[in-house]
Structures are given as structure tokens and as C-alpha cells.
């Protein structure tokens, strides 16, 4: 058993150098980031790191004894293979503590070229069972897998009993209702998807329009939602719109909501989960600060006294403020959600 398994790492998002420093200052054990291109699944304008920023980020985190993980979690496309392999080379050169990969071809490159580089399986690898995780372990020596947000806790536990690979779970943030890596809804509507371009429902396809029947959000012309005067608006992620199914209009796929598993902390620790991940590299440093601070406090409290752990209302209140649609859910960890 590796010591870090017991440590229960808090893995926080950084879309920029200020966000990275904020995450470190507020108690993240690991920070994850991406380069400024389509090699990662948050490929948004103005976000992410060039080489200089990445180097400074690694220096800052390492000086304080924290780790930096690099997300290279899109699927290299035929025309850009070198972009992905250079990113691997850069990760090794920068001294990244691990790279988070989804593509087997890229994993093979990494193991051959940089055998010392630690590999994590990205959630975009869609590994929902131990046979799949062990596949990546046997062939590429992955050390940790981030499991898609679709398993119930009992299923996660069953999976953990059958693999030597560490398991990292999403604890908080924007919720994918679909299995990550198995969703092409965005490219169906806009031509760009997480797998191919590192984006979902890309901002350039979004249009807001005030109409007689309300404020409308559209994605490449497709009506995703329409809001009444007193309703809160949300980003038109296409699975979180209101649609008409058999004459009934509702959130047919998922409500705009955030995953929040704070109350599951004692259970996750007992199970031996290696790390808990906070979603949101596209969010502001203020979000990163707030979420990291609350989770640091909660994890420390839970570790001090797991039996007596209770979620403080103040924590939920703080997290509620930064949640999408101001709603929170346990997602698939709680079976009736399915």
C-alpha cells in the first residue's frame, strides 16, 4: 500500500497560474492543469498554461510540497499526433508528478519514451469496471484511475477490491450525466466534442436572445432553454436544457446542478479512495479558493474524527454559492439518482 493512498489527496483544478497558487495556498494536495490547446478537455480561450506559466506553477507547488498533474485527456486526432507527444515530452521535462491520459496510443508513447513518468487514467477513458482499469494497468502501468461519475458507491468499492490501481473520484463540481468519453452530443450539435476538441457545448456556438416568449439560449441555433422573467439562467450545456418529450417540457436529461459529495467523506475514506477531485478548471480563482478551503477543512475534520464527522452548514452554504444552478446532488453515488 502506498502512503499517498492513506493520505486521501485533495486534487484541485487550475485554469491559470493565479488559480494554481490559490489552490496551493488554500490546501490542495495536488493541482491539475492543462496546456493551452486541444490536448486537454477544457480547451477554452484565455484558459490554461503556456510553458513558462506551467514551469512557474510546478515550481510554486513543489516549493510547498504539493504535486502538479497534467491533464492530456483528449484523444489525439489524426492530424495532430505530435501536439500530444510534445505535451508528454514537456510534462516530463517540467517535472510533472503525473500525466492524466485517456488515449491508449498516447499511453504507449509515454511508457516507451518516459518510463519514469507516472500515468493516471483520465475519466475520459470511460473505465467503469475493473477489467477495463486492469487493462490499462497491465499494458501501460497506470497507477491511478479517475472513475466516471456513473458508479454507485457499492460499485466503486467492488471495483477497488479487484484492482491494484488507486482510485480517484469526483467530489464536487459540474456534473456530467453521461459517461465521460462516451458522449458525442456536443459534436452532434456543434461539430466539437470533448473527445475530439476538448470542449463541450463550446462558447462560440452559444447565442442569447431576448424574445417575446422569454430569454432564449441557443447552441448552434438549437434552442436549449427559454427563461421566464424570474428564472435563473444557466450556461446552455446541451444536456442541461429543457426539452419537450411526449408533450411534457422538463429537464429531460439533467437539471443544472453540481455534484457535492461532502457528506460521503467518511465513507470514501473508509473505502480507501486515494484522492478526491474538484471539477472546474474553467472556473475563477475565487471559486478555486472557496471550494479548496471548504474541502480542506472538511477532509481534515473527517480525518481527525471520522466517526463523529458531520457536514457543517457553513460549508454547504459556501459550496452552494458557487454551485451551478445553486443546486447540489450526490449524483450516481446515490443510487436513486439513476
Amino acid at each position, binding site marked *: 500500500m502506498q502512503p499517498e493512498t492513506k493520505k486521501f489527496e485533495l486534487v484541485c483544478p487550475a485554469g491559470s497560474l493565479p488559480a494554481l497558487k490559490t489552490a496551493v495556498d488554500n490546501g490542495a494536495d495536488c493541482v491539475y492543469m492543462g496546456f493551452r490547446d486541444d490536448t486537454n478537455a477544457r480547451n477554452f480561450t484565455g484558459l490554461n498554461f503556456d510553458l513558462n506559466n506551467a514551469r512557474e506553477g510546478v515550481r510554486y507547488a513543489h516549493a510547498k510540497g504539493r504535486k502538479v498533474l497534467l491533464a492530456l485527456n483528449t484523444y489525439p486526432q489524426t492530424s495532430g499526433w505530435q501536439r500530444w507527444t510534445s505535451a508528454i515530452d514537456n510534462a516530463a521535462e517540467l517535472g510533472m508528478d503525473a500525466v492524466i491520459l*485517456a488515449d491508449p*496510443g498516447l499511453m504507449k508513447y509515454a511508457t516507451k519514451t518516459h518510463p519514469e513518468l507516472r500515468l493516471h487514467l483520465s475519466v475520459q477513458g470511460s473505465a467503469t469496471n475493473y477489467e477495463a482499469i486492469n487493462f490499462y494497468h497491465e499494458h501501460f502501468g497506470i497507477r491511478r484511475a479517475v472513475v466516471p461519475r456513473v458508479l454507485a458507491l457499492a460499485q466503486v468499492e467492488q471495483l477497488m477490491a479487484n484492482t491494484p490501481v488507486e482510485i480517484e473520484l469526483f467530489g464536487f463540481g459540474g456534473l456530467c450525466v453521461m459517461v465521460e468519453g462516451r458522449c458525442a452530443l456536443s459534436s452532434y450539435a456543434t461539430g466539437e466534442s470533448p473527445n475530439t476538441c476538448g470542449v463541450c457545448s463550446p462558447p462560440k456556438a452559444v447565442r442569447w436572445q431576448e424574445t417575446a416568449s422569454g430569454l432564449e439560449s441557443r447552441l448552434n441555433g438549437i434552442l436549449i432553454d427559454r427563461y421566464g422573467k424570474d428564472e435563473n439562467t444557466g450556461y446552455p450545456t446541451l444536456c442541461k436544457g429543457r426539452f419537450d418529450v411526449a408533450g411534457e417540457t422538463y429537464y*429531460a436529461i439533467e437539471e443544472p446542478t453540481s455534484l457535492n459529495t461532502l457528506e460521503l467523506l467518511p465513507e470514501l475514506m473508509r473505502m480507501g479512495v486515494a484522492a478526491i477531485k474538484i471539477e472546474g478548471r474553467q472556473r475563477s480563482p475565487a471559486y478555486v479558493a472557496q471550494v479548496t478551503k471548504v474541502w480542506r477543512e472538511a477532509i481534515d475534520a473527517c480525518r481527525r474524527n471520522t466517526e463523529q464527522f458531520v457536514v457543517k452548514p457553513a460549508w454547504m452554504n459556501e459550496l452552494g454559492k458557487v454551485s451551478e444552478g445553486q443546486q447540489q446532488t450526490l449524483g450516481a453515488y446515490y443510487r436513486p439518482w439513476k
Partner: protein
Amino acid sequence: MKLALGPLLYYWDNEKVNAFYDAIAQSPVDIVYLGETVCSRRHLLRLDDWLEVAQKLSDAGKEVVLSTQTLIESESDLKTLRKITGNGNFRVEANDMGAVRLLANHMPFVAGPTLNIYNPQTLQLLAEMGATRWVMPVEMSGAALSEMLQSRPANMETEVFAYGRLPLAFSARCFTARHHNLQKDDCQFRCLDYENGLTLKTREGQPFLTLNGIQTQSARVYNLLGELEELRATGVDVVRVSPQAYHSEKILHLFHETLEQRIPPSLALTQMEKLMPELPCNGYWHGKPGLDFIPQPALARSA
């Protein structure tokens, strides 16, 4: 090019399934993919029943491939998976890397469309593990495929999803049960009521997606009938038609006749219009949003 019938993505009762495959046995299809790939709760046909269908089709001269479930979560899902990969008779389409682990270096297999093979390096890797055919991800363009195939591994066939509502996404949540305010564990098998899936429209009435249990499909019907010559020139070996509740044999027939160049694609497309549950799309192949429909100028001229 060979003609394949993809796995049945909907949930039909046994009578309908058996009648469907009886008709398929008589159709001009070369390859038939069988099995439940969407949801483990759909159990009217057990694996043994599927194997019976497989034998029947095999006896009729079809190449039969058993497809594995795409989203594998539980130990019982894995048990079924192991039975399929160890069936010892029919080739298997792996739709999850867990299936690849069980098949690699044991028997030749088909690398299914959800394995996310987006580059030649990954394709080569799967070839080394024993894949002898791969199915292109639905969102890949013809231009990208062409680049992929410039370094195609030896003895590797390429298959393209060429007709049907596109399987776009998989979830742990059942959207059909959700529509009925039911939980998945108590779904009352409502999928049986929607033999072509349940259409999701925008609030201005545009058919957008199709709910099919835990799977989300396009509402529009992906149709590359007009692009078959382009597919052939790109190096595609197999075109896949996805089953629908009605007219599947007629659609296979039109694909077959077009492939044999006994009927011009423009005429086949016109005849197909009435057979499709929704308007066509073909955007993905042309590097556009999947729901786009790019009319083929050459076809328009000859029509």
C-alpha cells in the same frame, strides 16, 4: 464493400426480435452483430437465446458477431461479458476496454465504435492485441478516416456506421425511466413501449435527440447512402446499418442494390425517404456538426 447489420439498440419483445432476425436471415446482409449492448436490465432474451439466433443466422450463411455491452458497471455485467468473450464459437465485438482485456491475445475480435480509436497509433495497438476489424467512432469525419487509413495495419478491416439514429451517449441514468418518473431499478421496462426510441424535441418542436434507456441517440437518421462511393474510395470495407422497428430489410435491400450498382444512389435515397423515422443527416462524415445534412451535388444532378 460488405454490408453489416449493427446490434439491435432498442428493446423489443421476443416475438418481434425473432421475427426480425428470421427476416434478416433472408436478407442480402453479410454480417450480423447480435446481443444487448445498451442495458443489462433488458433480459427478455438471455445470452442463450441470442446464441440460438446467432446459430440460425450462421446457418443462413451470415457472419455473426456477438456485441458486448457498452457500459459495464456491475459484477453481473462482467459475468455476462466473460460468457460472451469465452463463447468459443462466434467472433466478438468489444465495446469496452474490459472486453478488450478478456479478448486480447486470445481470439481475433472486432474493436467496436465506443473504444475511441481516433488515431493510427491506437489502431495499431489494437491490431497487435488481435483486432481484425474496427468500427470508426461515429463522430469521425471522412477526411480523418482517410488519414487513419494511410497507415492501416495489415489484416485490419474498417467498418463505418452508415445508417440509423446515431448512438451518441451513454449514461448510468435511464432517461426513459426518468420520463416516467421512475427509477432505473424499477423502470417497469418502459423501453418496450418505444420500439424506435422516445423523441426529444426542442421547445420549438425541432426533433433533436432520441431517448433510448441509458443511451441517447440522434433524432435524425444518419445516412451515408449518398456517400458510398466516397467510402469505398477511402478504403472502407464494411458499412453498418442500424436496426429500426420497421423497414430494416427494405433499407438493407436498398443499400445492397446501391453497393452492387444496380440502382443509382439518388433513386435509392428517394425511395428511402419514406422508410426513415426522421429526416436524414450526414454532417459527421463531412466534418460538420452531426445533425447537418449536406446534399450531394453529384446526386442532385443525376436525379
